[in-house]
Each structure stands twice: as structure tokens, then as C-alpha cells.
């Protein structure tokens, strides 16, 4: 039953939050405390965060900038990576320091490198060996490349981020073809599809993320709380699944 006031009834980890100012304008949250205030308003306990500088400019520099946002508990760092020696070395150093629970793919297609085995094999082999999951924005990547390449690395777990109703024809075949793929739900609004995907593939493959500040934190969380997911499934989608993926408590 809806009311004019919403608060989640399960613990929530937002699996997709971007920090830092964009060139198009400053973020609504300019510092960690403001981000915590926003999370508190929506009842979100923790968030997986990456830095916006990693999206268009530099994963290496953006990962350094992310350090300024981190605290001991509420913000879980997500480091961005591309298949260059210095980017992979940076990630491997962070991994040796036990600070890597997930990575985010930097989009290399604009620079001429598709998501392909001959370009990404070193990175994907490492991800397969370590079990570190990789967040992949569906908005930026060619689905044929994703399927063709990821099929060659069946041990790599991926989270497809930002699926939209314009991806409605892709999502089910992707989840069927790549059994180690998960779907982050920030933009996924085809009617009734979250319940349908849970029924077809299992709620264990669905992950709440907001992609704040592109999108507000509350609406998808409200949606999830007004579906026919069981309380156990809701708890898994809102936090349990990402906890297991990241290997965190």
C-alpha cells in the first residue's frame, strides 16, 4: 500500500553512485557529508561509488580523486579500469592492498578499441582469476561485443548497468546467454519487467542501483517496494545480492 511518505523496509546498498562534479555542472552533493545526507533521506545505508572523472577523462586520475571521498564504512569504492598497462597496474596495486571489491569498465570504443578478446584478454583473465566483478554500462557498449567476448571468459561476473526500456529486446537474451551476468536496475522501467525477470531468472541476479546523480535515489527503491517480490527477494535485490558479489558483510 502506498503512502505519501516512503521509507525502505529492508537494508539498502545503492550499487551505482557517481561522485564528483561534471563539466556540465556541479553535482548536487559536493562532499561526503552531503552525499550521506542524501542517502539518509532515502534510507540508504551504503553506496558503491565511482568518480565521474573516470567516465570521459581518466580512470587512473579519477581513481585517485575517488580517494578523497572514501570513509571507513558507508562508501564502497569502485575503481574504473581500461586495458592499458598503467591502469591495470593501478588496480592490481589496490588489489594487493585488499581495496578492490569491484571494477567499472571505462568505455574505449570512442578511441577505436571495441570490447573484444584481443584488446581485453589480460584484464579479463585477471578478473577471472580473482573473481572481481565488473560493472559494465549497457548504455555505452555494443551488446554483440559483450556477448561474444564474455562468452570466452565464463568465470567473469559482470553487472550490466543502466539498462533502459530502449534495451528491452536485449535484456532477457543477455541474462539467458550470460549466466554470470547481473542486472542493475537504475533505469529499467518496462512495465512489470522487474517481477518478470525475477520470476524468469531469479531475483538473485537483480541489483538495486540509482545511478545518482543522473537519477534520483528514491524512485526505483519505491518501485521495488511496490512489486510482488517477496520480502526475502526484496532484501536480496536491495542489498544482499551486491553484498555477495562484492564479498562484503
Amino acid at each position: 500500500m502506498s503512502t505519501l511518505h516512503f521509507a525502505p523496509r529492508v537494508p539498502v546498498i545503492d550499487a551505482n553512485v557517481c561522485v564528483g562534479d561534471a563539466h556540465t555542472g556541479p553535482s548536487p552533493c559536493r562532499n561526503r557529508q552531503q552525499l550521506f545526507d542524501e542517502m539518509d533521506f532515502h534510507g540508504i545505508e551504503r553506496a558503491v561509488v565511482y568518480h565521474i572523472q573516470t567516465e570521459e577523462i581518466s580512470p587512473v586520475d579519477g581513481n585517485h580523486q575517488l580517494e578523497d571521498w572514501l570513509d571507513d564504512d558507508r562508501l564502497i569504492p569502485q575503481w574504473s579500469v581500461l586495458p592499458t598497462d598503467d591502469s591495470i597496474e593501478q588496480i592490481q596495486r589496490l588489489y594487493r592492498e585488499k581495496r578492490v571489491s569491484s571494477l567499472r569498465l571505462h568505455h574505449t570504443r570512442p578511441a577505436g578499441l571495441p570490447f573484444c578478446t584481443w584488446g581485453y584478454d589480460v584484464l579479463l583473465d585477471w578478473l577471472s582469476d580473482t573473481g572481481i566483478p565488473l560493472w559494465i554500462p549497457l548504455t555505452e557498449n555494443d551488446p554483440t561485443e559483450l556477448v561474444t567476448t564474455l562468452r570466452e571468459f565464463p568465470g567473469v561476473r559482470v553487472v550490466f548497468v543502466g539498462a533502459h526500456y530502449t534495451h528491452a529486446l536485449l535484456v532477457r537474451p543477455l541474462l539467458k546467454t550470460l549466466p554470470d551476468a547481473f542486472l542493475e536496475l537504475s533505469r529499467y522501467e518496462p512495465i512489470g519487467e522487474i517481477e518478470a525477470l525475477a520470476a524468469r531468472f531469479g531475483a538473485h541476479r537483480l541489483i538495486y542501483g540509482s545511478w545518482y546523480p543522473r537519477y534520483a535515489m528514491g524512485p526505483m527503491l519505491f518501485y521495488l517496494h511496490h512489486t510482488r517480490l517477496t520480502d526475502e527477494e526484496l532484501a536480496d535485490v536491495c542489498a544482499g545480492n551486491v553484498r555477495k558479489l562484492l564479498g562484503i558483510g
Partner: protein
Amino acid sequence: MIDGCRVIDFHGHVGRWDRYGMKDDPGLMLRAMDAAGIDVSCLFTIFHPDGTTGNDLSAGFIARHPDRFVGFAYVSPMMPERMIAELERAIDTLRFVAIKLYPPYTPRPFHAAPWHPIYEFADARGLAVIFHTDQYPTNRPRFLEDIAPLYPRANFVAGHSGNVEEARVEAIAAARKYPNVYLETCSTYRTPGVIEQLVNEAGADRVLFGSDIPLMDPRPQIGKIVTARISDEAKRLVLGANAARLLRGVERTS
């Protein structure tokens, strides 16, 4: 119903758009509406340029659940000879309650002359007209400033409130200038702070909840309103009271 507030969704569709997973399954739509607390959805069919085909499809769909759906009439200036007769049929015979227009399907910005017979009709009947609005040349919300003052008895609704910031500021400016301009909220762009901006800058009495059902599930769209930093009174206005006022005299929404 949400906390005693009757909820009216001002923006919904009949029809299929297969490549985007849109299907007008009434069971699916009603389940989502019930889960979200939506009492009535306003529906229209934009996929047929003659107007008649789509309006008949809408009427047939609505007839199966007349307590939950109401119809808006769709016409296109690409078939001008059909427009007024079809509007008369839709309002008087099919008992539709407002008008929906979709400028992206035409090469004509919606303040251009071919659209005006529709506005004259709406003005004469005191009807609301909802447009798709965004940043593209035929759909700019600033065109409302050219139309609204000419037809003061009609109410003009910027569907999606322009969708993106550059067009949203136009929509808000038009609503601030003219009392018969309204802003509707459905959008795939669920940017933080937009609902607050619409309410704070145009006024809570000028904002209408919409979802784009069944292209989009209504639950995140209503979540935008419920989780916004606006007062309870503003939420009630946005969620249904404003729509009921615009659609006054229509027995299904009273």
C-alpha cells in the same frame, strides 16, 4: 488512493511499441496501478495518424475498465480535413475528456497555423490539451507562450515538462506567465530535484503526475512524487487534485 488522495495518472497509452517492450496488457497495467495506488489513468493512442483508428482502439480498451481509465482524443494536423470532425466524435460520442497531441510525428512546430483549429476547439469546449514536449524543433515548450494567451478557456499541458533542462526551463517560464499552462511529470529522465523545481517555480497547483504507462512502469514515476522534498499538500495536488480540476465535469474522475 494514497493516504486518502485520489490519484490520477495524466499520461498513458493504448497500443504496442514492440521494439521497446511496450504492450497494453490491461492486467499488467492494472496490477501496476494497484500496486502504486493509482485510481485512474488517462489514455490515448498516438500510433495512427488518422486519429479515428487510434481513438476507436482507446475506446475499446477503456470500455473494459471504465472505472479505471479515461480517454483523451488524438488527432494530427497531417490530416487536417479529419481533425475537427474526429474531435467532435471523440468528445461527444466516445466521451473522451481531453486532447493529446504528438508533434514529433509531424514536421510542424506545435504553435504553427495547422494546429490552431484544434486549440479553437479546445477553447470552445474548455478542454485540456497535452503535448509531448522536449528540446527538439517541433516540440519546444516555449511554443506554449504563443498559444496559451490566444485560447484562455483551454488548458495546455507540457507533457514531460520538456524532459531535459533546457526545455524544462521553457515549460516553467510558460507556466509562470500563463494560468492555463500546466506541467506534467512523466519522464525517463528522473533527475534529482526536478519535481521540487517544478513545484517551487511553477507552483504545486500547476503540476500533474503522469507515468507514460505502459511504455514505462508507473511505479518509479509515482515514486518520483512520493520521494520528492515537497509538502504533503503539494503531493496531493500533483498526484490527483490538479488533474481532477482540469478534467472537471467528467463523472469518472469526480
